[in-house]
């Protein structure tokens, strides 16, 4: 993000941002001015806590009412000792946590998680940027293409995952049917230790693109046309325009898409659980399926330990997101 410095400078003084905004809209080729339309939040009026509560009240109520209590229960469960039936037997102190940390396959699971999240999120964002740009072009049949791309998002993840099992299977898979037409294969996409992760990542990217692309389409849709007109007048090359104008203006959408994708991909369960269901043990699990298997599918069969893993998951993703927000200077951006 080459424009970061300028954004920080601009955000430092509200007036500067405003000026930069109006100015930038007119003459975007002027480097730092590209920060453009001042972000409202950066110059937000002060407000009292009271009126804030009025506007945020319903949201807070919903969160406090529905999310907070179960979260407390989760922490409580993570400190409890359970029978495999789910019956609470007493306090466990920190043993569930140490049991998770001492689990011999935890390093494997963590590496899998990193590979999974980084690969899926990075590929998703890059591809989605292209798809979104394409979807905002005007051409005959655009509407139909847009409808088509919503489908992977609309379909149930479990069923999509099951469909991919039908595609990937060694014997009856469509992919191997296609490969065989070229004299290739068959490839054991799901049973081979080399292929399983790339196969799952492909599905992960595939189902994440529609959502991400539409966040970008919406973001692009909110960029005033005249900004481009002005750029064209200034004789900027298409790439310059994209790099200097589109991308920076897409920043809020990019940020939201990245943060939410990181969280969703990290928490993604059905794809890995379904595609990996034939592989014994934990060798291709991420922290989320690891957590589930600890509770119900592995010899541990311990909901307390699983709850501790669940708490670790939240802490892990919290740290990752905070680091990401810090790295992308979200604070300066909108605060």
């Amino acid at each position: 993000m080459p424009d970061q410095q300028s954004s920080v400078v601009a955000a430092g003084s509200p007036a500067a941002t405003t000026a930069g905004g109006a100015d930038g809209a007119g003459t975007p080729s002027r480097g730092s001015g590209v920060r453009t339309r001042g972000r409202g939040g950066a110059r937000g009026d002060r407000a009292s806590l009271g009126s804030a509560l009025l506007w945020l009240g319903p949201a807070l109520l919903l969160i406090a009412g529905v999310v907070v209590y179960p979260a407390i229960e989760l922490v409580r469960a993570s400190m409890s000792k359970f029978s495999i039936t789910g019956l609470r037997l007493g306090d466990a102190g920190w043993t569930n946590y140490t049991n998770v940390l001492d689990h011999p396959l935890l390093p494997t699971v963590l590496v899998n998680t990193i590979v999974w999240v980084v690969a899926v999120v990075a590929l998703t964002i890059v591809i989605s940027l292209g798809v979104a740009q394409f979807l905002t072009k005007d051409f005959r049949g655009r509407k139909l293409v847009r409808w088509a791309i919503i489908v992977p998002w609309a379909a149930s993840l479990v069923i999509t995952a099951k469909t991919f099992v039908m595609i990937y299977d060694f014997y009856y898979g469509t992919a191997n049917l296609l490969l065989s037409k070229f004299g290739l294969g068959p490839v054991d996409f799901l049973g081979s230790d080399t292929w399983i992760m790339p196969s799952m990542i492909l599905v992960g990217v595939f189902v994440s693109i529609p959502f991400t692309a539409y966040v970008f389409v919406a973001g692009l849709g909110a960029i005033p046309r005249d900004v481009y007109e002005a750029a064209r007048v200034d004789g900027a090359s298409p790439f310059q325009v994209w790099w200097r104008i589109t991308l920076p203006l897409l920043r809020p959408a990019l940020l939201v898409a990245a943060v939410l994708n990181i969280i969703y991909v990290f928490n993604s369960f059905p794809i890995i659980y379904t595609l990996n269901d034939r592989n014994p043990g934990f060798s291709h699990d991420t922290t989320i399926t690891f957590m589930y298997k600890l509770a119900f599918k592995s010899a541990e069969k311990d909901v307390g330990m699983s709850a501790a893993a669940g708490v670790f998951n939240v802490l892990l993703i919290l740290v990752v997101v905070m680091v990401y927000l810090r790295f992308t200077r979200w604070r300066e951006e909108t605060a």
Partner: protein
Amino acid sequence: MSTVTETGTGSTSRGNSSVAPQGGSRRSGWQRHRSWVLPVAGAALALVFLAPYIVMLLNSLRPSSDVVQTPPTFFPREWQLSTYSQILTDERFLNWLKTSVIVAGSSTLIVILVSIPAAYYTARFRFPGRMAFLLLVLVTQMFSPTALVVGIYREWFNFNMVNTYAALILTNAAFNLAFAVWILHGFFASIPKEVEEAANLDGCSRFGTLRRVMLPLTMPGIVTAVIFTFIAAWNEYVVALTLMLDESKKPLTVGITSYVTGYEQHWDQLFAAAIVAIVPVVVLFAVIEKHLVGGLTAGSVK
């Protein structure tokens, strides 16, 4: 102020071609080809994204045994259309569908009603706890529902609301709030303040400004949030599995697991049901899709 005026002007030229500006010299050559290159590329892109669902569709049109037949064939060995009439006349399936529509629709409505004021306010004002609020909203997304389901069950059990739509709707709404708040926050934040000030000068109340000026401008964000929430609620599984006891109150995601058990497999019905389940979402999308682009072309600033 210039931004506002120019935005207004921009609205008259709806041409999306301006989104992808081209250098003048290559322009004419490109213009000649773009009328067929873009549709062809679009068709290819659509095909890529539909490919697995074409497999799904073809699987719903063949007998169950043909679905997992080795060696496979791309097209059904035997076409079977009766699965769809079987599904659509199955009372259980229709009940699942009804539940899903009620739950997803209501959850979406609640999310939009609750997230708009929150997003607007956090984008426009600074107040103590603002960052904390935005982070709290985000944190709600970090919990895997599987990890929380025990507490969710206990909570609704205590309220004697297990097996009610309301419990499922409120749970879905709460867990999908984050996306809506965040994306709308981004949109409100990117609307130049001058727009709002102009409206205020015109004598709009704060609420009136929000409704008549800000909302049309954030339409792409709202549409995205609606689609997102609807789909998330539409596809939620684990909470519904735990909360909904009656056959007739199960949503599609839970009911659909009936088709393939360890002992009996109706792959044809499973995939047909899955195809039918996609339709309402695509219809919803088709209806509101036009608002995805062009919040600024709605002419609301005039």
